[in-house]
């Protein structure tokens, strides 16, 4: 059966972006972006196995300004995906489908993900990283 040219749903060319749809595609994008981040996690762990020198190099790269910027991006993506993932799990259990509730949980999720990111970096800076 040839299904190549059937319109796809949601038909994005005529689909008005809105809170729920934007948050939804961001869940997918943060998921993929976190997948790239696992490469850094693997590099960090393997460097720790290879010894102090390799680990020092890894720390220099990750601790550079650019490294920290990326780390910040991954930390926010993680908390975004985590909070929205919990929202997903409530939907899977059958709760939260009213439009009003979906909008409120969406904003709450955005707020929580920002708070958690600030909290994590605040903790790191206080613990002496900087």
């Amino acid at each position, binding site marked *: 059966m040839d299904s190549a040219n059937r319109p796809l749903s949601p038909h994005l060319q005529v689909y008005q972006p809105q809170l729920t749809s934007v948050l939804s595609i961001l869940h*997918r994008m943060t*998921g*993929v972006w*976190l*997948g790239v981040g*696992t*490469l850094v*996690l*693997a590099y960090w*762990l*393997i460097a*720790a*196995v290879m*010894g*102090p020198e390799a*680990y*020092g190099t890894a720390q220099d790269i990750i601790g550079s300004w650019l490294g920290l910027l990326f780390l910040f991006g991954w*930390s926010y993506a*993680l908390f975004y995906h*985590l909070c929205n*993932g*919990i929202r*997903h*799990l409530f939907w*899977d259990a059958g709760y939260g489908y009213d439009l009003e509730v979906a909008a409120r949980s969406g904003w709450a999720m955005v707020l929580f993900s920002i708070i958690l990111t600030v909290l*994590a*970096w605040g*903790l*790191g*800076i206080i*613990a*002496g*990283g*900087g």
Partner: protein
Amino acid sequence: MSLLTPLARVRGLGSANEGAHHWWMQRLTAVALVPLLIWFVASLAFLAGADYARITAWIGHPVVAVLLLLLVFALFYHLKLGMQVVIEDYVHGKFAKLVCLLGNSFGTILLGTACGYAVLEIAFGGS
């Protein structure tokens, strides 16, 4: 009317022959990842600026090593399932899709195994 044979209906596995297994494992790993990742990020924040000795001592601690192994397993399992869906949605050529799906499976298993090995080597190795 159902097009399923009675046996297929009892098994409930559908045309992909795996039923809700993919969906369920994506959720199961997600639930596991919530506490594990909060613990992991909080620990890293506390360890900010720690030197090599302190980091490896932390990774090698029995409780930490076990939790890290669980984290690595749930993380790469979840990633494998998630990327699989993304590939199925966006990669359309039959051959390209197959290559991407194989690359996803092998890549996540390779990285996950390497991470797991690293944790074990630090916990049990001489260093």
